[in-house]
C-alpha cells in the first residue's frame, strides 16, 4: 500500500528543521497568549477594583490550553460550574450560618459530589463539576466567620472567575487562533477516506482476524474522537454548531456501517475456515461491484456526492446478480449461507449509502437547517467509580476540616481550598498519585521562585508595566514546562504555585511571615490530596473497573435482546463504542487485557446487531404465535449467556438458537428471520472468537457445517 511506502521514506533534513521550528513556534505562541491573558486579566481586575485580582489571574493559568476551541469550550463549562458553585455556597452558608460542623459536612459533601460528577465525563463537562466544587469552597470558606458576607464574597468570586475566563477565551480566539474546526474537518475527512478505502481494498477476499481487530480499534477511535471534537468545536464555531446534528448522524451511520461490514467479513472468514470456499467466493463475487463503485479519488472536495450515484447503480447491479449467483450454487447449505450473506450485504450497502449521503450533506457549503434526524451519542458511564471519587473527596475534606477545627490553624482554609482544587482536577486521570506528587514539587519550586520575585524584585519597582516585566519571565518558565511532555505537570504546579502565592492586588502587601505560612498551608493541602489518592485509589485504570466495564460491554447483548426498540440501534452502537474506547485508553496496546477486550467487543457487536435486526423484523411482520416462544427463548438465553458467560449457559444458548432455527423452518413466510438467526448461530460457533473458551470439545468444522 502507498501508506507504508510513505512511512519508510526518510524525511530530509530541511523537513526535520521545519517541523522542529513549527513545534517551537507553537510552544512560544502558547506562552505569549497565556501571558497576555494573565496580565490583561490582572490589569482589568485592578481597574475594576475587584477585591482579589489574583483569583482572576490564577483562572487564566488553569484554563490555558493550546487549542482555542478548547479554551472556549472549557470556559463555557467553567462559567456554568462557577455559577452553580456560587449558588451552592450561598445555600450552604444560609443553611448553617452558626454551625461550623454541619457547614463543613455540607460543603464536603457538595465538593465530593462535584468530584464524582467530574469522573463521569471525558470532555470539558467534567470541568464544570470541578469548578462547581472549587467555587463553592472559595466563596464559602473565607466567610465562615462572617456569614452575611457571603453575597459580597460570591459576587466578587464570580466576577473574578468570569473575567479570567472571558479574557483568556478572547485572547485565544483572536490572537493567532489554532482552530479545532480544522482538526474536526480533518478527522471527519480521514474517517471517511479511511473507511471507504478499507472497504474498497478488502473486496478482494477475506481479511485476517488480526487486520480486522486493528481496523475495529481504528474505527472505534475515529468515532469517539469525532464525537469528542464535535462537543468542543460547537463552542468555537457557530457554523459547526449549526451542523452539529449532521455530524452526529454521520458518526452514527459510520458506526452502523462498520459493524455490518465486520459481520460480513467474519461470515466470509468462517466459511473459508470451514472449507466452504464455493459459498465464500460467490459472496465475494456478489460484493465486487461495491468495490468498483468506491474506486474513485476521494480526496477531492465534492467527493462524497460523486460516490452516491455510483453506489446506487452498484446496489442495482448487485440485486440483479443475486438470483443468478444463487442459482449457480447447488448445495442447500451453500444456498442458505449465501442468503445470509446476501441479506447482510444488502444491509451493509444501505448503511454505506446512508453514510456517504451524510458525508455529502456535510460537504455542501450551505447549512441545510433542520433536515437532520436527531440522534444522541450515549455514553457508557460507570456510576460506582464516580461514587468512589465522591467518597474519597468528601473524606479528604472532612479530615482536613476536622484538623482545621481542632488545631485552630489560621490558614486551614487555605489548605482546604487547594485540596479541593486538586482532588477534583485529578480525579479523572489514570495515575493521580504520581501526578499530584509532580505538581507538588512544581508548586514548591513555583512558590520558592515567587518568594524571590515578590521580596527581591517587586519591592524595587513601581507601576503595572514594571510588574509585568518582573513577573513574566518566572511565569513563562512554568508555561514552557507545561508544554513539554515530561515536565507538563511540574510546569502546571510551578505556574499555579507562582501565580497563587504572589497574590497580586491593588495595594500589594509584603508580609514574609504570612507568605511562608500560606506556602506551608498550600503544601499541606496538596499533600492531603496526594495522600487521599493513595488511601482510596481511583477506579480509573484499575483492573476492577476494567472488569466492570467488560461486564457492561457483554451486558450490551442483553440490552440488544431486551430493551425497547425505538432508538435502540444508535444507543447500542454508541454505548459500545464509548465503552471500548474507554477501556482501550486505559490498557496497554497488545496486552492480554486489551486483546480479550477487543475479542469480546467483536463478538458483542456482531451478535448484538444481529439480535436488534431480528427484533426489528419480528416487530415489523406477523410472527406466528407458535413460533414466538422459541424466538423469545433464544433471545433470553443469549442475553443470560453474555451477562454471565459459562459453559452451561453456552450450551443453553446454542441449543435455543438451533431450536429457533428449526422452528422457523417449520413455518411459512418467516424465512427473513432465518438470516439473522444464522448469523447469531455462526458467531456462537466461531472457534476463533472469544466464545471458544466455553465450547465443549467438538469438531469445529462439523459444528459450522451443522449450523449452516
Amino acid at each position, binding site marked *: 500500500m502507498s501508506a507504508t511506502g510513505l512511512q519508510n521514506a526518510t524525511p530530509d533534513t530541511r523537513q526535520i528543521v521545519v517541523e522542529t521550528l513549527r513545534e517551537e513556534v507553537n510552544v512560544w505562541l502558547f506562552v505569549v497568549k497565556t501571558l497576555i491573558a494573565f496580565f490583561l486579566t490582572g490589569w482589568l481586575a485592578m481597574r475594576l477594583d475587584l477585591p482579589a485580582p489574583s483569583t482572576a489571574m490564577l483562572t487564566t493559568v488553569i484554563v490555558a490550553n493550546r487549542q482555542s476551541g478548547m479554551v472556549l469550550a472549557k470556559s463555557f463549562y467553567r462559567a456554568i460550574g462557577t455559577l452553580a458553585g456560587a449558588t451552592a455556597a450561598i445555600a450552604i452558608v444560609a443553611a448553617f450560618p452558626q454551625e461550623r460542623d454541619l457547614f463543613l459536612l455540607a460543603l464536603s459533601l457538595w465538593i465530593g459530589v462535584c468530584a464524582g460528577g467530574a469522573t463521569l465525563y471525558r470532555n470539558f463537562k467534567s470541568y464544570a463539576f470541578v469548578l462547581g466544587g472549587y467555587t463553592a469552597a472559595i466563596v464559602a470558606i473565607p466567610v465562615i466567620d462572617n456569614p452575611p458576607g457571603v*453575597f459580597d464574597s460570591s*459576587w466578587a468570586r*464570580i*466576577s473574578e472567575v*468570569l473575567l479570567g475566563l472571558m479574557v483568556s477565551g*478572547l485572547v485565544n*480566539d*483572536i490572537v493567532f*487562533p489554532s482552530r479545532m474546526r480544522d482538526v474536526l474537518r480533518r478527522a471527519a475527512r480521514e474517517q471517511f477516506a479511511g473507511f471507504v478505502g478499507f472497504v474498497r481494498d478488502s473486496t478482494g477476499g477475506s481479511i485476517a482476524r488480526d487486520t480486522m481487530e486493528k481496523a475495529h480499534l481504528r474505527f472505534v477511535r475515529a468515532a469517539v474522537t469525532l464525537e469528542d471534537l464535535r462537543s468542543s468545536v460547537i463552542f468555537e*464555531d*457557530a*457554523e*459547526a*454548531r*449549526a451542523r452539529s446534528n449532521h455530524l452526529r448522524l454521520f458518526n452514527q451511520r459510520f458506526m452502523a456501517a462498520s459493524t455490518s461490514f465486520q459481520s460480513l467479513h467474519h461470515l466470509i472468514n468462517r466459511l473459508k475456515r470451514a472449507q466452504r470456499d464455493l459459498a465464500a467466493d460467490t459472496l465475494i463475487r456478489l460484493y465486487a461491484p461495491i468495490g468498483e463503485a468506491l474506486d474513485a479519488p476521494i480526496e477531492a472536495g465534492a467527493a462524497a456526492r460523486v460516490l452516491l450515484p455510483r453506489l446506487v447503480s452498484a446496489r442495482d447491479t448487485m440485486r440483479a446478480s443475486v438470483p443468478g449467483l444463487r442459482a449457480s450454487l447447488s448445495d442447500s447449505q451453500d444456498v442458505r449461507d449465501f442468503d445470509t450473506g446476501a441479506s447482510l450485504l444488502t444491509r451493509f450497502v444501505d448503511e454505506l449509502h446512508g453514510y456517504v449521503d451524510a458525508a455529502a450533506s456535510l460537504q455542501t*457549503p*450551505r*447549512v441545510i*437547517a433542520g433536515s437532520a434526524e436527531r440522534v444522541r451519542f450515549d455514553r457508557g458511564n460507570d456510576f460506582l467509580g464516580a461514587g468512589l471519587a465522591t467518597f474519597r473527596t468528601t473524606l479528604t475534606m472532612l479530615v482536613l476540616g476536622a484538623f482545621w477545627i481542632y488545631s485552630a490553624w489560621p490558614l486551614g482554609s487555605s489548605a482546604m481550598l487547594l485540596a479541593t482544587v486538586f482532588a477534583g482536577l485529578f480525579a479523572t486521570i489514570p495515575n493521580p498519585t504520581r501526578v499530584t506528587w509532580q505538581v507538588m514539587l512544581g508548586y514548591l519550586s513555583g512558590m520558592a521562585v515567587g518568594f524571590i520575585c515578590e521580596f527581591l524584585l517587586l519591592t524595587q519597582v513601581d507601576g503595572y508595566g514594571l510588574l509585568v516585566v518582573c513577573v513574566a519571565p518566572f511565569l513563562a518558565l512554568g508555561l514552557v514546562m507545561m508544554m513539554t511532555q515530561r515536565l507538563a505537570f511540574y510546569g502546571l504546579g510551578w505556574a499555579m504555585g507562582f501565580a497563587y502565592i504572589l497574590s497580586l492586588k491593588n495595594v500589594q502587601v509584603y508580609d514574609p511571615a504570612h507568605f511562608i505560612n500560606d506556602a506551608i498551608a498550600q503544601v499541606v493541602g496538596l499533600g492531603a490530596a496526594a495522600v487521599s489518592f493513595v488511601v482510596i485509589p481511583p477506579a480509573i485504570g484499575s483492573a476492577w473497573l476494567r472488569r466492570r466495564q467488560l461486564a457492561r460491554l457483554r451486558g450490551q447483548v442483553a440490552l440488544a435482546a431486551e430493551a425497547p426498540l425505538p432508538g435502540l440501534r444508535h444507543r447500542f452502537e454508541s454505548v459500545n463504542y464509548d465503552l471500548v474506547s474507554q477501556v482501550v485508553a486505559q490498557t496497554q496496546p497488545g496486552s492480554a487485557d486489551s486483546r480479550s477486550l477487543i475479542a469480546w467487543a467483536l463478538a458483542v457487536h456482531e451478535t448484538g446487531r444481529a439480535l436488534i435486526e431480528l427484533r426489528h423484523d419480528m416487530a415489523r411482520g406477523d410472527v406466528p404465535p407458535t413460533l414466538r416462544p422459541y424466538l423469545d427463548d433464544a433471545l433470553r438465553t443469549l442475553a443470560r449467556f453474555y451477562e454471565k458467560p459459562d459453559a452451561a449457559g453456552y450450551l443453553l444458548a446454542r441449543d435455543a438458537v438451533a431450536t429457533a432455527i428449526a422452528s422457523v423452518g417449520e413455518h411459512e413466510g418467516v424465512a427473513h428471520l432465518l438470516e439473522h438467526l444464522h448469523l447469531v448461530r455462526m458467531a456462537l460457533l466461531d472457534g476463533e472468537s472469544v466464545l471458544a473458551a466455553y465450547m465443549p470439545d467438538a469438531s469445529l468444522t462439523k459444528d459450522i457445517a451443522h449450523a449452516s
Partner: protein
Amino acid sequence: MPREIALGDALVPGLLVFFVLALLLLWLLDGIAGRLGLYRLVWHPPLFRLAVFVCVFGAFALFMF
C-alpha cells in the same frame, strides 16, 4: 460609578448582570449568524464577534446611566 441592581433585595453589581445578559444575547446572535452562514462574509470571525459583543455590552451599559 458602580450602580447596583437589587435581585431579591440582594445588591448585585449592575455591570455583572448586564455582562451576563450581553453574553446570552451574543450567544443567540452568534447562533443565528452561524445558521445563515453570515460568518463567511467576514474576514476575521472572532474579531467580528468581539466587536458585536462590545456593541451589545456598550448598548446595555447605557441602561445604567
